[in-house]
């Protein structure tokens, strides 16, 4: 019953409370709290070393928070192993893409569906990903490592999508891409949300991220600096000065 409540559009999906994450003695995230609701695109922006990627890695279970709680669909997930978190419905397209370079595009996509057993569902989701990124269809039998950076990024996003996540984590999807490809990737992210997947997006390209996001959190050296509606933050003089090159 509680699932029906939380699955409703606009209901709370992910909430992080007072999360502290350390690399050894160095605090990377200090007391971060944030929420993501069903159907939203939420973006984390901030400069290098602000703790954005650390936050995503902690949600994915690759790092353990020293303090604080992470709750996903009403259940705590801090300390849960990485592969189990995928099973709970959180898939990540990691920073630096990390596709499997010596496997073909198709094999990469199949690995994205590693935990799924429904053959028909996987086939139709693969169809959907290939419609979303026609370039991948063209290169379906090619070894992923021989593709261009943009294509590899499409594959990383597609591979995460094929796990049919409830929450999709995207870490710097525009990194290292030519401007025209950045637009394409962001348009596709907006489409993915329209098709019903909730997205938490980490970006250095704040302008592009704020354009498609509903809400945004601005991080600075591991702490929350500002948060609010993306459209408001895009006009905020402080944000404009610091991150939008105004």
């Amino acid at each position, binding site marked *: 019953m509680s699932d029906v409540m939380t699955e409703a559009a606009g209901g709370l999906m992910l909430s992080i409370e007072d999360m502290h994450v350390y690399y050894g003695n160095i605090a990377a995230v200090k007391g971060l709290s944030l929420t993501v609701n069903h159907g939203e695109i939420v973006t984390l922006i901030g400069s290098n070393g602000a703790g954005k990627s650390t936050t995503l890695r902690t949600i994915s279970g*690759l790092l353990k928070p020293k303090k604080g709680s992470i709750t996903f669909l009403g259940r705590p997930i801090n300390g849960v192993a990485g*592969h189990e978190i995928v099973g709970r419905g959180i898939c990540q397209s990691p920073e630096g893409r990390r596709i499997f370079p010596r496997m073909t595009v198709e094999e990469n996509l199949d690995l994205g569906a590693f935990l799924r057993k429904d053959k028909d569902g996987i086939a139709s989701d693969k169809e959907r990903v290939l419609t979303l990124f026609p370039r991948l269809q063209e290169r379906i039998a090619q*070894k992923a490592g021989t593709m261009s950076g943009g294509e590899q990024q499409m594959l990383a996003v597609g591979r995460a999508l094929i796990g049919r996540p409830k929450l999709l984590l995207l870490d710097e999807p525009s990194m290292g891409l030519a401007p025209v490809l950045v637009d394409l990737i962001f348009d596709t992210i907006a489409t993915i949300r329209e098709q019903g997947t909730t997205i938490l997006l980490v970006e250095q390209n704040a302008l592009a991220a704020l354009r498609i996001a509903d809400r945004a959190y601005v991080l600075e050296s591991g702490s929350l600096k500002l948060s609010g509606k993306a459209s408001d933050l895009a006009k905020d003089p402080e944000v404009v000065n610091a991150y939008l090159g105004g």
Partner: protein
Amino acid sequence: MATAELVGPPETREHGRLTHNARWAIGFGTAAVLIFVTYHWVLPSLNANINTFVNSWLPLSVVDECMVWMICALGLNIVVGFAGLLDLGYVAFWAIGGYTAGWLISGQFYNLKIDIFGSPAAGTPGIHINFWLVLVAAAILTALMGILIGAPTLRLKSDYLALVTLGFGEIIPQFFKNGDHLGTLSGSGGFDFTHGERGITPVDPITIGPWKLGPFDLDWQFAVFAAIAAFVIFVCLRLRVGRLGRAWLAIREDELAASMMGVPLMRTKLAAYAVGAVAGGLGGVAFAEHVGGVLPDSFDFSISITLLAMVVLGGMGNVWGVMIGALVLSWINANGLKQVGSTFNSTFGTSWDFPSYNYLMFGLILVLMMLFRREGLLPESRTKLLLREPSRTDVESVGADLEGESA
């Protein structure tokens, strides 16, 4: 996880033609039958000169030994080639398999008298279990030991994993060497578990149905070993294309990314370790039968290294390549170098001791391989890609995007 889930549907034909694997499998089967027929029927009917020639260059006992090496190399290939985990102590599993045979088909435990379809000489005490059942027992025991050794070890990253496995490869044969006075500190009395440096001899012969193999039935021993090898090859190939094989591959490529896809790292690595260990155990039982017993000194570090050299020479990750690598190196080791040496010496009137240079030869072969054919004799297509056509780096792939636009 049921095995049935791990293997995909059989795919022996593609567009009406036999697949690569099916062709190799037929090749292996044909070669095995030909070898058996040759040594069993053809050779004895030929003249003495031909017999002497064949028996000096490729005696049947060497062929049998090569099969044992092949079985073990295929097992190591699962760990190193499929899952990308460097294991320098694989000899431990070979030894455990050998000692399983020693315990279960000999007079070692002389105050027991157990005979389960065994083949003991009349009236011998000890445990005498049927050879085929011992294979199963060794498989189970080595799988358990693989998990036991792997569970604490596999949390380590590559270089440390190599070091710790090296340690286990030393410890386990040492245990067998010293396990003859368990439970005492004095070096005498206590429980004689492994019979110390004297090892456990003899083990009972292999049985095929009601029929016992005699010491000169090397051709039938070959048939049995070839059947074990065929089983191991089959398991390797099926696991390779299944879900577990894909998970191994993903871990080998990028462990972190694999875990982000939901691959359970520990469980998947342990599976590689356990399955690889089973092949080592089967090879160990076969080896014990081949030499008629187990001696702790025959399980030293050089075996782990030689097996690794076979995997690298043949082509890491490619079942058929590893098979070829194992056959080539084990032949050189067992007999080839000796024959080349004696031919060389008699031709040129020298008296060099060729076999004592075998590790020099191995080193030379590996150096030459690294210089001219790093991917191995029969490379796996993926390895070839990595070594011959490097992936684009980030910088290069960004460049490629820009190129695409200006064009």
